[in-house]
């Protein structure tokens, strides 16, 4: 799992060739690695934008604006969930529980950077920072 995570960090997403490379490196059957890559949803099996933003819309977050935050980002970026902006900068995903419901609305940028209490102003700021 760590190997796939590192490969994804380097390549941006997990192409079949990348999975095959990891499999060879670990001495595992390629399908066994593919099983793992397709099971965990933080692995991307298709290209994503430079910044992948996942918004939690699960119930606890939804009660504190998770859905609104997602709608706001959709409007700002002009894309829906699972879409990438034309300039390839952003991909938006609907996330499942990130274990930070108290911080709702919560966004996760490129799997690793968690942003809490995302008001519209903070979303604006974040998008502006990410564009740099």
């Amino acid at each position, binding site marked *: *799992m*760590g190997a*796939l*995570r590192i490969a994804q960090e380097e390549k941006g997403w997990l192409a079949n060739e990348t999975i095959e490379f990891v499999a060879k490196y670990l001495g595992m059957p390629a399908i*066994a690695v593919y*099983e*793992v890559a397709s*099971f*965990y*949803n*933080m*692995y991307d099996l298709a290209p994503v934008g430079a910044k992948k933003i996942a918004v939690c*819309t*699960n*119930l*606890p*977050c*939804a*009660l*504190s*604006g998770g*859905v*609104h*935050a997602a709608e*706001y980002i959709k409007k700002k970026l002009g894309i829906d969930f699972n879409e990438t902006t034309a300039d390839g900068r952003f991909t938006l995903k609907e*996330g*499942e*529980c*990130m*274990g*930070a*419901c*108290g*911080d*709702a*609305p919560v966004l*996760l940028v490129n*799997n*690793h*950077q*968690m942003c809490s*209490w*995302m*008001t*519209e102003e903070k979303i604006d700021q974040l998008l502006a920072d990410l564009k740099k």
Partner: protein
Amino acid sequence: MTVQGIILSDLDGDRTWRLADYVKRGGYEALKKIIAEKIPADQIIGEVKKSALRGRGGAGFPTGLKWSFMPRAFPGAKYLACNSDEGEPGTFKDRDILRYNPHTVIEGMIIAGYAMGCERGYNYIHGEIFEVYERFEEALQEARDAGLLGQGILGSDFSFELYAHHGYGAYICGEETALLESIEGKKGQPRFKPPFPASFGLYGKPTTINNTETFASIPFIIREGGDAFLALGKPNNGGTKLFSVSGHVNKPGNYEIPLGTPFSTLLEMAGGMRAGRKLKAVIPGGSSAPVLPGSVMMDCTMDYDSISKAGSMLGSGAVIVMDETTCMVKALERLSYFYFEESCGQCTPCREGTGWLYRVVHRIENGLGRPDDLDLLNSVTANIMGRTICALGDAASMPVQSFVKHFGDEFAFHIEHKKCLVPKDVQHEGSKIYVA
């Protein structure tokens, strides 16, 4: 956070997680005591039993008893695993424990390793809180550098290695055997039990798995004694517990309170209902726990026995609070979607049933419900419950059953009138972005 706590007490956010601060707070004293006094393993397990500490992950199994299941004279490796794969909607306590007090988990695990004769442990951390994983790695290095972890701990002949492992987006890995599969680098599909992890766990070796908060309670129990811990709570419900309060409250967050504290007190601590609106419903133990009407909750105390008597579970201590602006059908639709998405796909009832449940609830929410849909939901959940490999089938079913049971009228209204009892704009107003 309250002063009564033992895990998150006296903490000052991000600044005090480091080893030096932890030691100042009495950290690693328990471990040092064990090493210095050569306390026998049995005595440690006895102390944990005395404390009436129950697993903080959700099932509430007595920790001391679990530890005593580990085979003593087993030749070869035994493993310890910490379950920090916190992905149950509503639960966010382990993140704070690992962020603000990682060393208490490390110390707890070392002590557990000592008590059960494990030489190696893993902490499996939810993939989405990757920054916490990175911090935990740092904390581990601090402990290693201080001789608290690794070969010959504190100059004794006791050795214990501890590693951090991260998930990467799969709720099911919070199930203990799925977690073991995932540590082994496989996809996280739960194993059939028996054999139980205590006899056939990680890499086929005896393994004990506990929740982060459980391990975090251990240093206190050893330092102050099991009785002191028990005294914090109530009989059979020892100690304090972290409650993650989310939803329609003014101050969502983690609150560490003694078990047995009234729900009303907890609600007050969380700043009360947002905008003074009326409490409608509470899920008291994470999204898998049956929902309870607000009125029922107001009479409960926050402990395993009281909540269980009221017809739900204390679970992981994730309290999701919903006010009168909440549409219960929409709320259930979102939860059902979650279980549908997170089913591992291994066994039939869950793989097929979670999708069915979601589609029916989705239909009702969208005005396409049919008169016999509620019977159908009850029947399908009955066919899932108790028939699956792991508890995810039950977890997906219990919200459906309880929502239909307690808020059947609202569902019936949807089906009959093809619209929601709670007007959309009211719903919208109630759940817009809210930051305290």
